[in-house]
């Protein structure tokens, strides 16, 4: 498996996600409503030595990807680690409409659909549900479109969907996702999860490997389920040639110092760190602190 970039800039800061303060989140949302401010952060990060970015397929991602594509000479070397889907969009639609009308909306009612629209006609939902894997492929294609022509290294399934599906314990979903991403897009499949020990155990049981697992890993034990100890046990015994591990939420939303965070992260058998920061100073100190084995 191709080696992961050790340092990846994430996107939480751009989308008003802050586990600590709603006010701070609102402030960030306002600042990054202007895409120029987003690119200022990216440019600062690249100057500090970051070579890879992670981006969720949400509303702002389309414009971000467009600008990256438009300036290929400047950004052509950036490695991409996108994640799909934009879970809030689906959650709201499923809540309002029910799951099948929501899927129908995404696939057939325009918005992001485009090319998929022409592939099959309307009113085929009943047929589609008999082949949920085909339905999944189409949803992936819809979301993947915004990342076309970018240098994608790993393509992730977001934790809300990974963990929801993991609970069902259906092997086909994980197997099919991984195979489809590998075959159609020629990139490494990845899963974001807040249940790393559970997921890794299942993937092993199902014989699915050569995938990346990204999970919340931090000295505070924040969002590490079922426990920090269980994470440490699984990470220590992991074989990175089968599962490369990527840590997210390493600063536990600011509940621990950068020093504490990275003393911990650097001591573990993990291959990559995705972090969020918006000031050049924070980016620089974070990049310098990451010294994975």
């Amino acid at each position: 498996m191709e080696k992961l970039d050790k340092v990846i800039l994430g996107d939480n800061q751009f989308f008003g996600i802050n586990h600590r303060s709603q006010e701070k989140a609102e402030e960030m949302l306002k600042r990054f409503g202007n895409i120029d401010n987003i690119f200022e952060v990216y440019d600062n990060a690249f100057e500090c030595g970051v070579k890879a970015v992670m981006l969720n397929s949400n509303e702002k991602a389309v414009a971000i990807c467009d600008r990256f594509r438009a300036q290929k000479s400047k950004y052509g070397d950036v490695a991409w680690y996108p994640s799909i889907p934009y879970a809030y969009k689906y959650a709201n639609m499923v809540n309002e409409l029910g799951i099948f009308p929501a899927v129908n909306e995404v696939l057939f009612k325009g918005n992001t659909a485009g090319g998929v629209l022409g592939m099959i006609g309307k009113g085929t939902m009943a047929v589609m549900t008999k082949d949920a894997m085909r339905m999944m492929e189409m949803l992936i294609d819809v979301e993947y479109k915004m990342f076309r022509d970018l240098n994608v290294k790993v393509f992730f399934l977001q934790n809300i969907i990974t963990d929801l599906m993991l609970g069902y314990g259906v092997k086909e979903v994980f197997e099919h996702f991984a195979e489809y991403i590998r075959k159609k897009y020629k990139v490494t499949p990845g899963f974001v999860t807040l249940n790393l020990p559970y997921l890794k155990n299942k993937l092993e049981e199902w014989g699915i490997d050569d995938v990346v697992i990204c999970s919340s890993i931090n000295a505070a034990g924040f969002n590490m389920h079922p426990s920090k100890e269980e994470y440490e046990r699984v990470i220590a015994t992991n074989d990175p040639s089968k599962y490369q591990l990527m840590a997210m939420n390493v600063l536990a939303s600011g509940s621990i110092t950068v020093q504490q965070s990275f003393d911990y992260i650097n001591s573990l058998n993990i291959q990559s760190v995705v972090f969020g920061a918006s000031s050049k100073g924070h980016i620089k100190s974070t990049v310098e602190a990451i010294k994975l084995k």
Partner: protein
Amino acid sequence: MGRMGLTHYSIINTHPAVEMTAIADTQSMMLNMMGKYLPSVKMFDDYKDLLKSGLVDAVIVCTPSVMHYDVCKMACEKGINVFCEKPFTTSPAQAKELADMFEQKGLVNQVGYVYRFDAVFGKVKEMLGKQLIGKVVHTNVQFLSSTISKMQPEKGWRSKRESGGGATYEMGSHVIDLMEFFFGKPQQIIGTMMNQVYSEAVEDIADAQLIYEGGMSANIHVNWSDYTFRKPMLKLDIHGTAGKIQADLYGYKVFMREENVAEGLPEGWTSVPMNMIPDPCPFYVRGTSFTKQLYEFADAILEKRKSSGCAFREAVDTQNVIHYIFEH
């Protein structure tokens, strides 16, 4: 299987001592799809057949609220333990009847008032239990969201009270239950008000004042048409004689008039963000509360406990407050 049904299945299926044996849904598409990938689970297109099948010891009821009474009643008759989504019923009389029935049969019964399992509000309950802020004199609770931020077409479950729509059922029920969780049943309800912003058949804003034994008063305000909130905001202010607690979904702050050495709380404000409160759960899907809530239900059955989480009896009090707001 709407959004809650899909979530609950995923969570409870990971409980090591629980086996999922049956699903009932009226959508044939859902049953086809589930049936294909969950071959050991039996699919029913009528909940009555599921309850009669002998395949289940417990059910999770996520139907529209107006059906809760019939489903729960039949489950009780069949000796089946029930976890029922909120709002519990659409009438206080039905809520009481169900609570009586389940208690008589000794079946575990729980309503999905999930904020009881939130780490922050759990901490608030603990602090109140220790009387850290002295005698509570007043509480102010608000729940605001942008759920309905434009004119509503008259379809969809949120535009009908029978299906659990309206700001009082959707959001008021949660804060009224939190008050029940913290302080028990109110003695008097005054100053109730409902108002509309965008909806036609249901209310978008609801207010009430609750008065408790011992004189504590509480203001409740919910508004699901507050477009300034991207995410729902549930906020509590609890004013006591020895201090004050402020809490929301992001953490809590406590003000002590005097230092409390035993609790490590200095005089003045102490602020604890949510990520500083240890909150591990066995399997995370959509926040730890959903998991803790359902595991509590399953464990109560496995450990042969009589009650779990938010019992039907407590949900009766909440139902009474809700309907008082509707009627006054």
